[in-house]
């Protein structure tokens, strides 16, 4: 009997609201079917500390907003065969990149979030990764192999894409996706 090796899949959560991961989980009973064919090697819902090597498919949710994410993304690209940008934040930058419209956006964002709108002990955070001057969509930092826009993309669309790739086909998402 030939046992086919499971496809190694990772999901990554950068600067996003986790809505795309929720949509991923919304595949519901189809996840059981999927779990027979894939192995989840890295994910915010799996307790793995370091991004493993030789990952077949990585889904990335969220835009790149800080230094840690920037370096992590470079590492992910090196260790992944097929990189999929999942959702508007990963594809276009979405809400995360809106701060790019402001001069000196880091200062403005931090001031708004940690000083102006805080009533008790307002102070700048120190033990968190430094924000980048500008926020980026995934394809502004590394090469992306496939895009699934949507805020979030529907569970059916995610399921369709992953199933097609597992079958060795390139999915065609024309008229199936919607920005926003």
């Amino acid at each position, binding site marked *: 009997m030939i046992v086919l090796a499971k496809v190694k899949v990772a999901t990554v959560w950068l600067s996003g609201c986790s809505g795309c991961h929720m949509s991923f989980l919304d595949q519901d009973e189809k996840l059981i079917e999927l779990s027979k064919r894939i192995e989840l090697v890295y994910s915010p819902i799996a307790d793995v500390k370091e991004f493993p090597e030789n990952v077949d498919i990585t889904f990335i949710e969220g835009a790149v907003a800080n230094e840690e994410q920037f370096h992590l993304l470079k590492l992910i690209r090196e260790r992944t065969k097929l990189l999929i940008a999942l959702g*508007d934040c990963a*594809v*276009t930058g979405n*809400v995360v990149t*809106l701060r790019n419209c402001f001069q000196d956006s880091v200062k403005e964002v931090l001031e708004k979030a940690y000083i102006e709108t805080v009533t008790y002990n307002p102070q700048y955070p120190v033990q968190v990764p430094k924000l980048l001057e500008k926020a980026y969509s995934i394809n502004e930092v590394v090469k992306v192999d496939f895009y699934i826009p949507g805020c979030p993309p529907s569970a059916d669309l995610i399921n369709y894409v992953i199933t097609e790739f597992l079958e060795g086909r390139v999915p065609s*998402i*024309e008229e199936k996706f919607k920005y926003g």
Partner: protein
Amino acid sequence: MSERIVKLIIDGKEIFAKPTDTILKAAIDNGIQIPTLCYLEGLTPHGGCRLCVVEVKGNPKLMTSCTTPVSNNMEIITNSPKLIKYRKQIIELLLAERIHTCSVCIANGSCELQELASKFGVDHTNVSRNWERFELDMSHERFVLDHNRCILCTRCIRVCDEIEGVHTLDIKRRGKDSMIIVDLDEPWSASYSCTSCGKCSAVCPVGAIYVKGKPLSETKRKELPKFITERRRR
């Protein structure tokens, strides 16, 4: 005297049209779909978005079907790989030019640019973005003018001029710096000519002009210019 009729071929199909018809009208009348964005039935064609370009045999240039009149024995292709490539590029550039963040846009779900992106499979943009921020004009009691979403299709200008007949709206500057202005570039609330009819918000294909406190799906009436011009002809 019988009306003169011209014969032309669109996508291999032989069709007849009036000599005053544009390629787009002849195509629509014969059930041939050509994608459009700035075009709106009832308004003078503008030919600005270039989405409706077609190939005309014997002409090395691509022609905008909304502004090009038909002529006898014209041979037209509306859907070649080359045209699709250009249309995709146009949509990509429109998405990249200003800040079209669909998820927080008032037009989400009833936006023609969003629809076209999906239809043509423009699932990302490769060009770097500008991130220029324009101030909103929220001074009018009912309407908002958001330049950040504007694709400069000029539908609002044309409907204001041709249908309402007041020409409150116009355009200033050129190229990517172009902006819709009210009267002589004044805050909307200070406009003397504006009748607050709201036709501009009814025809805006994106979320650039909208009625305060209402989703675009409730206020959008794309068929309005056609409806009004047809009633005037009677």
